Protein backbone atom coordinates (compact mmCIF):
# COMPACT_ATOMS: atom_id res chain seq x y z
CA UNK A 1 0.00 0.00 0.00
CA UNK A 2 1.43 3.42 -0.91
CA UNK A 3 2.10 5.81 1.98
CA UNK A 4 -0.45 8.33 0.62
CA UNK A 5 -3.74 7.75 -1.13
CA UNK A 6 -3.09 7.78 -4.89
CA UNK A 7 -3.95 11.03 -6.67
CA UNK A 8 -5.46 9.47 -9.76
CA UNK A 9 -9.05 8.32 -9.55
CA UNK A 10 -10.69 5.88 -9.59
CA UNK A 11 -8.65 3.58 -7.37
CA UNK A 12 -9.36 0.00 -6.32
CA UNK A 13 -8.44 -1.08 -2.81
CA UNK A 14 -9.30 -4.02 -0.58
CA UNK A 15 -11.72 -3.84 2.35
CA UNK A 16 -11.57 -6.54 5.00
CA UNK A 17 -10.82 -10.04 3.75
CA UNK A 18 -13.56 -10.41 1.14
CA UNK A 19 -14.31 -6.92 -0.16
CA UNK A 20 -13.07 -4.38 -2.68
CA UNK A 21 -13.61 -0.65 -2.75
CA UNK A 22 -13.70 1.43 -5.94
CA UNK A 23 -13.22 5.08 -4.96
CA UNK A 24 -13.90 7.94 -7.35
CA UNK A 25 -12.41 10.66 -5.16
CA UNK A 26 -11.30 11.53 -1.64
CA UNK A 27 -13.92 14.25 -1.35
CA UNK A 28 -17.54 14.51 -2.32
CA UNK A 29 -18.19 15.96 -5.76
CA UNK A 30 -21.08 15.77 -8.20
CA UNK A 31 -18.98 13.69 -10.59
CA UNK A 32 -17.71 11.26 -7.96
CA UNK A 33 -21.20 10.70 -6.52
CA UNK A 34 -22.67 10.20 -9.99
CA UNK A 35 -19.84 7.78 -10.84
CA UNK A 36 -20.43 5.76 -7.66
CA UNK A 37 -24.18 5.45 -8.27
CA UNK A 38 -23.75 4.53 -11.93
CA UNK A 39 -20.87 2.10 -11.33
CA UNK A 40 -22.82 0.21 -8.68
CA UNK A 41 -25.81 -0.06 -11.03
CA UNK A 42 -23.46 -1.43 -13.70
CA UNK A 43 -22.00 -3.96 -11.23
CA UNK A 44 -25.44 -5.19 -10.25
CA UNK A 45 -26.17 -5.70 -13.95
CA UNK A 46 -22.88 -7.45 -14.65
CA UNK A 47 -21.61 -8.95 -11.38
CA UNK A 48 -17.94 -9.68 -10.76
CA UNK A 49 -17.00 -13.31 -10.00
CA UNK A 50 -18.51 -14.42 -6.69
CA UNK A 51 -20.29 -11.10 -6.10
CA UNK A 52 -22.47 -11.21 -2.98
CA UNK A 53 -23.37 -7.61 -2.22
CA UNK A 54 -22.68 -4.06 -3.40
CA UNK A 55 -23.22 -0.68 -1.81
CA UNK A 56 -22.27 2.94 -2.38
CA UNK A 57 -20.91 5.56 -0.05
CA UNK A 58 -20.71 9.22 -1.10
CA UNK A 59 -17.95 8.68 -3.66
CA UNK A 60 -17.18 4.96 -3.71
CA UNK A 61 -18.59 1.53 -4.41
CA UNK A 62 -18.07 -1.50 -2.18
CA UNK A 63 -18.36 -5.05 -3.45
CA UNK A 64 -18.24 -8.13 -1.24
CA UNK A 65 -17.54 -11.49 -2.82
CA UNK A 66 -17.52 -15.14 -1.80
CA UNK A 67 -14.03 -16.42 -1.05
CA UNK A 68 -15.22 -19.95 -1.77
CA UNK A 69 -15.82 -19.25 -5.45
CA UNK A 70 -13.66 -16.26 -6.23
CA UNK A 71 -10.50 -14.38 -5.30
CA UNK A 72 -9.10 -10.86 -5.22
CA UNK A 73 -7.28 -11.22 -8.54
CA UNK A 74 -10.45 -12.22 -10.42
CA UNK A 75 -12.50 -9.44 -8.80
CA UNK A 76 -9.80 -6.81 -9.37
CA UNK A 77 -9.53 -7.80 -13.00
CA UNK A 78 -13.31 -7.64 -13.54
CA UNK A 79 -13.54 -4.26 -11.81
CA UNK A 80 -10.68 -2.86 -13.91
CA UNK A 81 -12.37 -4.04 -17.07
CA UNK A 82 -15.70 -2.49 -16.12
CA UNK A 83 -14.06 0.79 -15.07
CA UNK A 84 -12.37 1.03 -18.48
CA UNK A 85 -15.67 0.81 -20.33
CA UNK A 86 -16.48 4.50 -19.98
CA UNK A 87 -15.93 7.77 -18.17
CA UNK A 88 -18.00 7.11 -15.05
CA UNK A 89 -17.77 10.71 -13.79
CA UNK A 90 -20.31 11.89 -16.40
CA UNK A 91 -22.46 8.76 -16.35
CA UNK A 92 -26.24 9.09 -16.32
CA UNK A 93 -27.90 8.41 -12.99
CA UNK A 94 -29.45 4.95 -12.53
CA UNK A 95 -32.94 4.16 -13.81
CA UNK A 96 -35.96 3.81 -11.56
CA UNK A 97 -35.29 6.87 -9.46
CA UNK A 98 -38.10 8.72 -7.70
CA UNK A 99 -38.60 12.36 -6.76
CA UNK A 100 -40.14 12.81 -3.32
CA UNK A 101 -41.99 15.80 -1.90
CA UNK A 102 -41.48 15.67 1.86
CA UNK A 103 -43.37 17.95 4.27
CA UNK A 104 -41.21 19.38 7.05
CA UNK A 105 -41.59 21.82 9.91
CA UNK A 106 -38.68 24.25 9.95
CA UNK A 107 -37.66 25.89 13.21
CA UNK A 108 -40.08 26.07 16.19
CA UNK A 109 -39.58 23.81 19.19
CA UNK A 110 -39.62 20.82 16.82
CA UNK A 111 -36.38 21.88 15.12
CA UNK A 112 -34.69 24.35 17.45
CA UNK A 113 -31.45 25.07 15.55
CA UNK A 114 -32.83 26.70 12.38
CA UNK A 115 -31.85 30.27 13.38
CA UNK A 116 -28.38 29.21 14.49
CA UNK A 117 -27.70 27.29 11.26
CA UNK A 118 -29.17 30.09 9.12
CA UNK A 119 -26.89 32.63 10.79
CA UNK A 120 -23.84 30.47 10.08
CA UNK A 121 -24.94 30.35 6.42
CA UNK A 122 -25.42 34.15 6.42
CA UNK A 123 -29.17 33.90 5.93
CA UNK A 124 -32.31 34.89 7.79
CA UNK A 125 -34.41 31.94 8.97
CA UNK A 126 -36.95 32.57 6.18
CA UNK A 127 -34.20 32.77 3.55
CA UNK A 128 -32.74 29.54 4.94
CA UNK A 129 -36.06 27.72 4.55
CA UNK A 130 -36.47 29.05 0.97
CA UNK A 131 -32.91 28.02 0.15
CA UNK A 132 -33.32 24.47 1.50
CA UNK A 133 -36.69 23.99 -0.23
CA UNK A 134 -35.75 25.69 -3.52
CA UNK A 135 -34.60 22.60 -5.41
CA UNK A 136 -34.69 18.83 -5.06
CA UNK A 137 -31.70 17.35 -3.22
CA UNK A 138 -30.23 14.04 -4.35
CA UNK A 139 -29.97 11.02 -2.07
CA UNK A 140 -26.19 10.83 -2.43
CA UNK A 141 -25.95 7.72 -0.32
CA UNK A 142 -27.86 5.76 2.30
CA UNK A 143 -25.93 4.68 5.29
CA UNK A 144 -24.90 4.76 8.91
CA UNK A 145 -28.37 3.64 10.05
CA UNK A 146 -31.03 1.70 8.11
CA UNK A 147 -32.60 3.74 5.32
CA UNK A 148 -30.89 6.98 6.39
CA UNK A 149 -30.23 9.34 3.45
CA UNK A 150 -27.42 11.83 2.94
CA UNK A 151 -28.88 14.62 0.77
CA UNK A 152 -27.10 17.20 -1.32
CA UNK A 153 -25.72 19.30 -2.47
CA UNK A 154 -26.88 22.57 -0.91
CA UNK A 155 -25.55 25.91 -2.25
CA UNK A 156 -22.02 26.93 -1.16
CA UNK A 157 -23.13 29.19 1.70
CA UNK A 158 -24.34 26.04 3.47
CA UNK A 159 -20.76 24.87 3.89
CA UNK A 160 -21.16 25.23 7.65
CA UNK A 161 -19.18 23.11 10.13
CA UNK A 162 -20.58 20.47 12.44
CA UNK A 163 -21.06 21.79 15.97
CA UNK A 164 -18.23 20.98 18.37
CA UNK A 165 -20.51 19.25 20.88
CA UNK A 166 -23.07 16.55 20.24
CA UNK A 167 -26.82 17.08 20.51
CA UNK A 168 -27.61 14.15 22.84
CA UNK A 169 -30.65 13.02 20.86
CA UNK A 170 -32.73 14.12 17.88
CA UNK A 171 -35.97 12.28 17.11
CA UNK A 172 -36.69 9.97 14.18
CA UNK A 173 -37.39 12.09 11.10
CA UNK A 174 -35.12 14.96 12.22
CA UNK A 175 -33.65 17.00 9.34
CA UNK A 176 -30.11 18.16 10.15
CA UNK A 177 -27.54 20.17 8.19
CA UNK A 178 -23.75 20.59 7.89
CA UNK A 179 -21.12 20.84 5.12
CA UNK A 180 -23.65 21.45 2.29
CA UNK A 181 -25.45 18.20 3.15
CA UNK A 182 -28.61 17.25 4.95
CA UNK A 183 -29.50 14.02 6.73
CA UNK A 184 -32.92 12.76 7.76
CA UNK A 185 -32.55 10.50 10.78
CA UNK A 186 -34.10 7.05 10.47
CA UNK A 187 -33.78 6.43 14.20
CA UNK A 188 -33.50 8.65 17.24
CA UNK A 189 -29.79 9.33 17.68
CA UNK A 190 -27.13 11.77 18.89
CA UNK A 191 -25.70 14.09 16.24
CA UNK A 192 -23.14 16.81 15.67
CA UNK A 193 -25.22 18.31 12.85
CA UNK A 194 -27.73 21.13 13.47
CA UNK A 195 -31.41 20.25 13.75
CA UNK A 196 -33.23 22.64 11.39
CA UNK A 197 -36.34 20.72 10.34
CA UNK A 198 -38.61 17.90 11.45
CA UNK A 199 -40.31 15.45 9.10
CA UNK A 200 -42.77 12.64 9.81
CA UNK A 201 -40.78 10.27 7.56
CA UNK A 202 -40.40 6.67 8.60
CA UNK A 203 -37.40 5.68 6.53
CA UNK A 204 -37.13 2.09 7.76
CA UNK A 205 -40.15 -0.10 8.45
CA UNK A 206 -38.94 -3.66 9.08
CA UNK A 207 -42.50 -5.04 9.07
CA UNK A 208 -43.05 -4.02 5.43
CA UNK A 209 -42.19 -6.19 2.38
CA UNK A 210 -39.92 -3.35 1.20
CA UNK A 211 -38.76 -1.77 4.44
CA UNK A 212 -36.80 1.11 2.87
CA UNK A 213 -38.49 4.32 1.70
CA UNK A 214 -35.61 5.85 -0.29
CA UNK A 215 -32.94 4.62 -2.69
CA UNK A 216 -29.59 6.19 -3.53
CA UNK A 217 -30.15 8.47 -6.53
CA UNK A 218 -33.70 9.45 -5.51
CA UNK A 219 -34.44 13.14 -5.08
CA UNK A 220 -36.08 14.85 -2.13
CA UNK A 221 -37.70 18.28 -2.16
CA UNK A 222 -38.83 19.62 1.20
CA UNK A 223 -42.10 21.52 1.55
CA UNK A 224 -42.58 23.75 4.62
CA UNK A 225 -45.69 22.92 6.65
CA UNK A 226 -47.06 23.90 10.05
CA UNK A 227 -46.61 21.76 13.14
CA UNK A 228 -50.35 21.00 13.11
CA UNK A 229 -50.23 19.74 9.51
CA UNK A 230 -47.23 17.55 10.26
CA UNK A 231 -48.93 16.14 13.32
CA UNK A 232 -51.98 15.18 11.25
CA UNK A 233 -49.78 13.55 8.61
CA UNK A 234 -47.89 11.63 11.26
CA UNK A 235 -51.14 10.25 12.67
CA UNK A 236 -52.94 9.50 9.41
CA UNK A 237 -50.28 8.63 6.83
CA UNK A 238 -47.68 5.85 7.30
CA UNK A 239 -45.54 7.70 4.73
CA UNK A 240 -45.59 10.88 6.84
CA UNK A 241 -47.05 12.93 3.99
CA UNK A 242 -44.28 12.03 1.54
CA UNK A 243 -45.37 11.67 -2.08
CA UNK A 244 -43.23 10.28 -4.90
CA UNK A 245 -43.24 10.55 -8.67
CA UNK A 246 -41.02 8.60 -11.05
CA UNK A 247 -38.15 10.49 -12.62
CA UNK A 248 -38.01 10.03 -16.39
CA UNK A 249 -35.07 7.94 -17.56
CA UNK A 250 -32.18 10.01 -18.79
CA UNK A 251 -33.20 13.04 -16.74
CA UNK A 252 -30.28 14.80 -15.11
Amino acid at each position, binding site marked *: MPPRPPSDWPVIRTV*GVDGMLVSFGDRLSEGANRAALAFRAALDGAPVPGQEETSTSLASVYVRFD*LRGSDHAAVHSALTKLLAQRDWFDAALPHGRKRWRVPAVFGTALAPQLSEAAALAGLSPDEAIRSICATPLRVQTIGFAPGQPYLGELPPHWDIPRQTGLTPRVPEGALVVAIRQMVVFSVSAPTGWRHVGQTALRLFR*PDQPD*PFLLRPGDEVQFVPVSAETLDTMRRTDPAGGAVAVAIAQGAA
Partner: protein
Amino acid sequence: MLAQGLSRGGAADLLALAEGAALLGQDTGLAALEIAGSFLRATLDAPARIALTGAPMRAVCDGAALAWNASHAVAAGATLDLSGSAGGYSYLHMGGGIVAPKVLGARSAHLAAGIGAMLVAGDALEFGPDAGGRVGLCLPALPRFDGGTLRMVETPQTALFPPTQRARFTETVFRKDARANRMGQRLVCDGAGFGAETGLSILSEIIVLGDIQITGDGAPFVLLCECQTTGGYPRIGTVLPCDIARLVQAPAGAALRFSFVSLEDAVRLERQEAARRAGLRRTLRPLVRDVHAIADLLAYQLISGVTCGDELESGGGA
Protein backbone atom coordinates in the same frame (compact mmCIF):
# COMPACT_ATOMS: atom_id res chain seq x y z
CA MET B 1 -28.26 -4.73 3.14
CA LEU B 2 -25.26 -2.46 3.53
CA ALA B 3 -26.56 -0.50 0.53
CA GLN B 4 -29.56 0.52 2.63
CA GLY B 5 -27.62 1.26 5.79
CA LEU B 6 -28.30 -2.03 7.57
CA SER B 7 -25.42 -4.09 8.93
CA ARG B 8 -25.46 -7.89 9.28
CA GLY B 9 -27.06 -8.32 12.69
CA GLY B 10 -27.55 -11.92 13.79
CA ALA B 11 -25.44 -13.92 16.22
CA ALA B 12 -22.51 -12.10 17.80
CA ASP B 13 -20.58 -15.41 17.73
CA LEU B 14 -21.30 -17.06 14.39
CA LEU B 15 -19.11 -20.02 15.31
CA ALA B 16 -21.42 -20.82 18.23
CA LEU B 17 -24.36 -20.73 15.82
CA ALA B 18 -22.58 -23.18 13.51
CA GLU B 19 -21.70 -25.44 16.45
CA GLY B 20 -25.32 -25.57 17.57
CA ALA B 21 -26.50 -26.38 14.05
CA ALA B 22 -23.92 -29.16 13.80
CA LEU B 23 -24.91 -30.61 17.17
CA LEU B 24 -28.56 -30.80 16.11
CA GLY B 25 -27.84 -31.75 12.50
CA GLN B 26 -29.73 -28.78 11.12
CA ASP B 27 -29.31 -25.63 9.05
CA THR B 28 -27.27 -22.66 10.34
CA GLY B 29 -30.05 -20.36 9.07
CA LEU B 30 -32.40 -21.41 11.90
CA ALA B 31 -32.82 -18.99 14.78
CA ALA B 32 -31.31 -19.67 18.21
CA LEU B 33 -31.51 -17.76 21.46
CA GLU B 34 -28.54 -15.53 22.30
CA ILE B 35 -27.90 -15.00 26.02
CA ALA B 36 -25.55 -12.07 26.67
CA GLY B 37 -24.15 -12.46 30.18
CA SER B 38 -27.63 -13.04 31.54
CA PHE B 39 -29.59 -16.09 32.71
CA LEU B 40 -32.63 -18.03 31.55
CA ARG B 41 -35.29 -20.23 33.06
CA ALA B 42 -37.62 -21.84 30.55
CA THR B 43 -40.31 -24.50 30.74
CA LEU B 44 -40.88 -26.67 27.70
CA ASP B 45 -44.44 -27.53 26.73
CA ALA B 46 -43.32 -30.31 24.39
CA PRO B 47 -40.37 -32.69 24.20
CA ALA B 48 -37.48 -31.10 22.35
CA ARG B 49 -33.90 -31.54 21.30
CA ILE B 50 -31.66 -28.73 22.47
CA ALA B 51 -28.02 -27.75 22.10
CA LEU B 52 -25.95 -25.38 24.22
CA THR B 53 -22.97 -23.50 22.75
CA GLY B 54 -20.91 -20.34 23.13
CA ALA B 55 -19.81 -18.93 26.48
CA PRO B 56 -20.25 -21.77 29.00
CA MET B 57 -23.01 -21.52 31.58
CA ARG B 58 -24.27 -23.79 34.32
CA ALA B 59 -27.07 -25.76 32.69
CA VAL B 60 -29.57 -27.74 34.72
CA CYS B 61 -32.67 -29.57 33.54
CA ASP B 62 -35.07 -30.61 36.32
CA GLY B 63 -32.17 -30.86 38.73
CA ALA B 64 -29.81 -32.79 36.42
CA ALA B 65 -26.68 -31.05 35.16
CA LEU B 66 -26.33 -30.80 31.38
CA ALA B 67 -23.00 -30.76 29.60
CA TRP B 68 -22.16 -27.56 27.67
CA ASN B 69 -21.32 -27.60 23.95
CA ALA B 70 -23.55 -30.62 23.65
CA SER B 71 -27.00 -31.71 22.54
CA HIS B 72 -29.67 -33.12 24.84
CA ALA B 73 -33.21 -34.45 24.81
CA VAL B 74 -35.56 -32.52 27.10
CA ALA B 75 -38.91 -33.95 28.14
CA ALA B 76 -42.21 -32.12 27.95
CA GLY B 77 -42.85 -30.15 31.12
CA ALA B 78 -39.17 -29.98 32.02
CA THR B 79 -37.65 -26.76 33.33
CA LEU B 80 -34.33 -25.63 31.93
CA ASP B 81 -32.10 -23.35 33.99
CA LEU B 82 -29.12 -21.57 32.48
CA SER B 83 -27.06 -19.42 34.85
CA GLY B 84 -23.59 -18.50 36.00
CA SER B 85 -22.42 -16.77 32.83
CA ALA B 86 -18.96 -15.23 33.12
CA GLY B 87 -19.73 -12.86 30.23
CA GLY B 88 -19.71 -13.26 26.50
CA TYR B 89 -22.51 -14.77 24.45
CA SER B 90 -24.19 -18.13 25.15
CA TYR B 91 -26.65 -19.86 22.85
CA LEU B 92 -29.64 -22.12 23.32
CA HIS B 93 -30.56 -23.95 20.10
CA MET B 94 -33.81 -25.83 19.61
CA GLY B 95 -34.35 -28.75 17.27
CA GLY B 96 -36.31 -27.21 14.38
CA GLY B 97 -35.12 -23.74 15.33
CA ILE B 98 -37.01 -20.97 17.07
CA VAL B 99 -39.84 -19.63 14.92
CA ALA B 100 -38.95 -16.09 13.87
CA PRO B 101 -40.25 -14.11 10.92
CA LYS B 102 -37.80 -13.52 8.09
CA VAL B 103 -36.97 -9.87 7.57
CA LEU B 104 -35.02 -9.10 4.39
CA GLY B 105 -34.37 -12.80 3.90
CA ALA B 106 -32.97 -13.55 7.35
CA ARG B 107 -34.18 -14.50 10.82
CA SER B 108 -31.39 -12.43 12.38
CA ALA B 109 -32.15 -9.99 15.15
CA HIS B 110 -30.81 -6.45 14.73
CA LEU B 111 -31.85 -4.73 17.93
CA ALA B 112 -30.39 -1.34 16.97
CA ALA B 113 -32.53 -1.34 13.83
CA GLY B 114 -35.64 -2.56 15.64
CA ILE B 115 -35.59 -6.05 14.12
CA GLY B 116 -36.33 -8.69 16.74
CA ALA B 117 -36.37 -7.88 20.43
CA MET B 118 -34.93 -8.86 23.78
CA LEU B 119 -36.92 -11.51 25.61
CA VAL B 120 -38.75 -10.50 28.74
CA ALA B 121 -40.11 -12.70 31.50
CA GLY B 122 -43.33 -14.39 30.42
CA ASP B 123 -42.53 -14.49 26.69
CA ALA B 124 -43.38 -17.72 24.87
CA LEU B 125 -41.28 -19.02 21.98
CA GLU B 126 -42.39 -21.50 19.35
CA PHE B 127 -40.12 -24.13 17.80
CA GLY B 128 -40.22 -25.15 14.16
CA PRO B 129 -40.80 -28.77 13.11
CA ASP B 130 -37.79 -30.84 14.18
CA ALA B 131 -36.60 -33.45 11.69
CA GLY B 132 -35.20 -35.27 14.71
CA GLY B 133 -31.86 -36.87 15.16
CA ARG B 134 -29.38 -38.02 17.74
CA VAL B 135 -28.76 -36.18 20.97
CA GLY B 136 -26.13 -36.72 23.62
CA LEU B 137 -23.44 -35.50 21.26
CA CYS B 138 -20.71 -33.03 22.05
CA LEU B 139 -18.21 -30.93 20.15
CA PRO B 140 -14.77 -29.79 21.19
CA ALA B 141 -15.27 -26.01 21.54
CA LEU B 142 -12.72 -23.91 19.70
CA PRO B 143 -10.83 -22.05 22.46
CA ARG B 144 -11.99 -18.43 22.43
CA PHE B 145 -12.97 -17.57 25.96
CA ASP B 146 -9.78 -16.06 27.37
CA GLY B 147 -8.73 -13.22 25.02
CA GLY B 148 -5.49 -13.55 23.07
CA THR B 149 -4.29 -12.21 19.74
CA LEU B 150 -6.68 -10.95 17.07
CA ARG B 151 -5.39 -11.06 13.51
CA MET B 152 -6.22 -8.16 11.22
CA VAL B 153 -5.69 -6.91 7.68
CA GLU B 154 -4.94 -3.38 6.55
CA THR B 155 -7.76 -1.01 5.67
CA PRO B 156 -7.85 1.81 3.09
CA GLN B 157 -6.94 4.12 6.03
CA THR B 158 -4.17 2.06 7.67
CA ALA B 159 -1.50 4.03 5.81
CA LEU B 160 -2.81 7.25 7.37
CA PHE B 161 -1.41 6.04 10.70
CA PRO B 162 2.34 6.71 10.99
CA PRO B 163 4.48 3.53 11.02
CA THR B 164 5.44 4.14 14.63
CA GLN B 165 1.78 4.19 15.64
CA ARG B 166 1.06 1.00 13.73
CA ALA B 167 4.00 -0.71 15.41
CA ARG B 168 2.96 0.51 18.84
CA PHE B 169 -0.59 -0.66 18.17
CA THR B 170 0.59 -4.23 17.62
CA GLU B 171 2.88 -4.10 20.67
CA THR B 172 0.18 -2.83 23.02
CA VAL B 173 -1.72 -5.12 25.34
CA PHE B 174 -5.33 -3.91 25.41
CA ARG B 175 -8.01 -4.82 27.89
CA LYS B 176 -11.61 -5.44 26.95
CA ASP B 177 -13.76 -2.63 28.33
CA ALA B 178 -16.65 -3.76 30.52
CA ARG B 179 -19.04 -1.71 28.37
CA ALA B 180 -19.89 -3.79 25.34
CA ASN B 181 -22.82 -4.31 23.06
CA ARG B 182 -23.64 -5.80 19.69
CA MET B 183 -22.65 -2.58 17.90
CA GLY B 184 -19.06 -2.47 19.03
CA GLN B 185 -16.42 -3.21 21.62
CA ARG B 186 -14.21 -0.55 23.14
CA LEU B 187 -10.69 -1.50 24.20
CA VAL B 188 -8.56 0.31 26.73
CA CYS B 189 -4.83 0.43 27.34
CA ASP B 190 -2.29 2.16 29.53
CA GLY B 191 -0.34 4.97 27.89
CA ALA B 192 -1.12 7.19 24.94
CA GLY B 193 -3.98 6.60 22.54
CA PHE B 194 -3.78 6.36 18.77
CA GLY B 195 -4.66 8.66 15.88
CA ALA B 196 -4.26 9.14 12.14
CA GLU B 197 -2.37 12.07 10.67
CA THR B 198 -5.38 13.45 8.82
CA GLY B 199 -7.39 13.43 12.02
CA LEU B 200 -11.11 13.57 11.55
CA SER B 201 -11.45 14.92 8.00
CA ILE B 202 -11.82 11.63 6.13
CA LEU B 203 -14.71 11.27 3.70
CA SER B 204 -17.37 9.01 5.19
CA GLU B 205 -16.71 5.50 3.89
CA ILE B 206 -17.95 1.91 4.07
CA ILE B 207 -17.58 0.15 7.43
CA VAL B 208 -17.33 -3.62 7.67
CA LEU B 209 -17.61 -5.92 10.68
CA GLY B 210 -14.29 -6.09 12.50
CA ASP B 211 -13.13 -2.60 11.55
CA ILE B 212 -11.00 -1.10 14.32
CA GLN B 213 -12.09 2.52 14.45
CA ILE B 214 -9.99 5.10 16.23
CA THR B 215 -12.29 7.83 17.52
CA GLY B 216 -11.48 11.21 19.04
CA ASP B 217 -10.31 9.83 22.38
CA GLY B 218 -7.63 7.63 20.75
CA ALA B 219 -9.08 4.34 22.02
CA PRO B 220 -9.78 1.54 19.54
CA PHE B 221 -13.39 0.56 19.02
CA VAL B 222 -14.01 -2.71 17.15
CA LEU B 223 -17.24 -2.62 15.15
CA LEU B 224 -19.50 -5.65 15.48
CA CYS B 225 -22.64 -7.16 13.98
CA GLU B 226 -24.99 -4.22 14.63
CA CYS B 227 -22.53 -1.48 13.70
CA GLN B 228 -23.21 1.55 11.54
CA THR B 229 -22.52 0.97 7.82
CA THR B 230 -20.50 4.11 7.06
CA GLY B 231 -18.20 6.31 9.05
CA GLY B 232 -15.57 9.00 8.82
CA TYR B 233 -13.25 7.89 11.61
CA PRO B 234 -10.07 6.20 10.36
CA ARG B 235 -9.78 2.43 10.82
CA ILE B 236 -6.32 1.12 11.64
CA GLY B 237 -7.16 -2.48 10.72
CA THR B 238 -9.98 -4.99 10.21
CA VAL B 239 -10.13 -8.05 12.47
CA LEU B 240 -10.48 -11.27 10.48
CA PRO B 241 -14.03 -12.64 10.62
CA CYS B 242 -12.67 -15.93 12.00
CA ASP B 243 -11.21 -14.06 15.02
CA ILE B 244 -14.36 -12.10 15.92
CA ALA B 245 -15.57 -14.91 18.20
CA ARG B 246 -12.36 -14.58 20.24
CA LEU B 247 -13.09 -10.88 20.75
CA VAL B 248 -16.79 -11.10 21.62
CA GLN B 249 -16.28 -14.10 23.91
CA ALA B 250 -13.38 -12.63 25.89
CA PRO B 251 -14.48 -11.70 29.41
CA ALA B 252 -14.37 -8.05 30.48
CA GLY B 253 -10.80 -7.10 31.38
CA ALA B 254 -9.27 -9.89 29.28
CA ALA B 255 -5.95 -9.09 27.58
CA LEU B 256 -6.16 -8.70 23.81
CA ARG B 257 -3.48 -7.94 21.24
CA PHE B 258 -3.55 -7.28 17.52
CA SER B 259 -1.28 -8.52 14.77
CA PHE B 260 -1.28 -7.67 11.07
CA VAL B 261 -1.39 -10.55 8.61
CA SER B 262 -1.06 -10.28 4.85
CA LEU B 263 -4.19 -10.37 2.73
CA GLU B 264 -3.00 -13.71 1.27
CA ASP B 265 -2.67 -15.23 4.74
CA ALA B 266 -6.03 -13.77 5.78
CA VAL B 267 -7.77 -15.35 2.80
CA ARG B 268 -6.12 -18.69 3.54
CA LEU B 269 -7.13 -18.52 7.22
CA GLU B 270 -10.73 -17.62 6.34
CA ARG B 271 -11.01 -20.44 3.85
CA GLN B 272 -9.54 -22.89 6.39
CA GLU B 273 -12.02 -21.80 9.03
CA ALA B 274 -14.95 -21.97 6.58
CA ALA B 275 -13.94 -25.54 5.70
CA ARG B 276 -13.53 -26.43 9.38
CA ARG B 277 -17.00 -25.07 10.20
CA ALA B 278 -18.51 -26.92 7.26
CA GLY B 279 -17.00 -30.12 8.64
CA LEU B 280 -18.04 -29.63 12.27
CA ARG B 281 -20.47 -32.56 12.11
CA ARG B 282 -17.53 -34.92 11.57
CA THR B 283 -16.10 -33.85 14.93
CA LEU B 284 -19.22 -34.74 16.91
CA ARG B 285 -18.65 -37.29 19.64
CA PRO B 286 -20.99 -38.96 22.05
CA LEU B 287 -21.06 -37.58 25.55
CA VAL B 288 -19.78 -40.09 28.04
CA ARG B 289 -22.71 -40.39 30.38
CA ASP B 290 -24.40 -43.06 32.35
CA VAL B 291 -25.21 -46.62 31.29
CA HIS B 292 -27.82 -45.42 28.76
CA ALA B 293 -25.05 -43.92 26.70
CA ILE B 294 -23.47 -47.20 25.87
CA ALA B 295 -25.85 -47.99 23.03
CA ASP B 296 -25.04 -44.66 21.42
CA LEU B 297 -21.36 -45.22 21.94
CA LEU B 298 -21.39 -48.58 20.22
CA ALA B 299 -23.42 -47.29 17.31
CA TYR B 300 -21.05 -44.40 16.87
CA GLN B 301 -18.03 -46.68 16.84
CA LEU B 302 -19.55 -48.93 14.23
CA ILE B 303 -20.14 -45.96 11.97
CA SER B 304 -16.91 -44.11 12.47
CA GLY B 305 -14.45 -46.90 13.14
CA VAL B 306 -12.93 -44.97 16.03
CA THR B 307 -11.66 -47.32 18.71
CA CYS B 308 -13.28 -47.69 22.06
CA GLY B 309 -10.13 -46.50 23.82
CA ASP B 310 -10.07 -43.19 21.92
CA GLU B 311 -13.67 -42.60 22.76
CA LEU B 312 -13.15 -43.02 26.45
CA GLU B 313 -10.14 -40.72 26.47
CA SER B 314 -11.61 -37.92 24.45
CA GLY B 315 -15.34 -38.17 24.92
CA GLY B 316 -15.75 -36.48 28.26
CA GLY B 317 -14.32 -33.14 27.50
CA ALA B 318 -17.50 -31.12 27.30
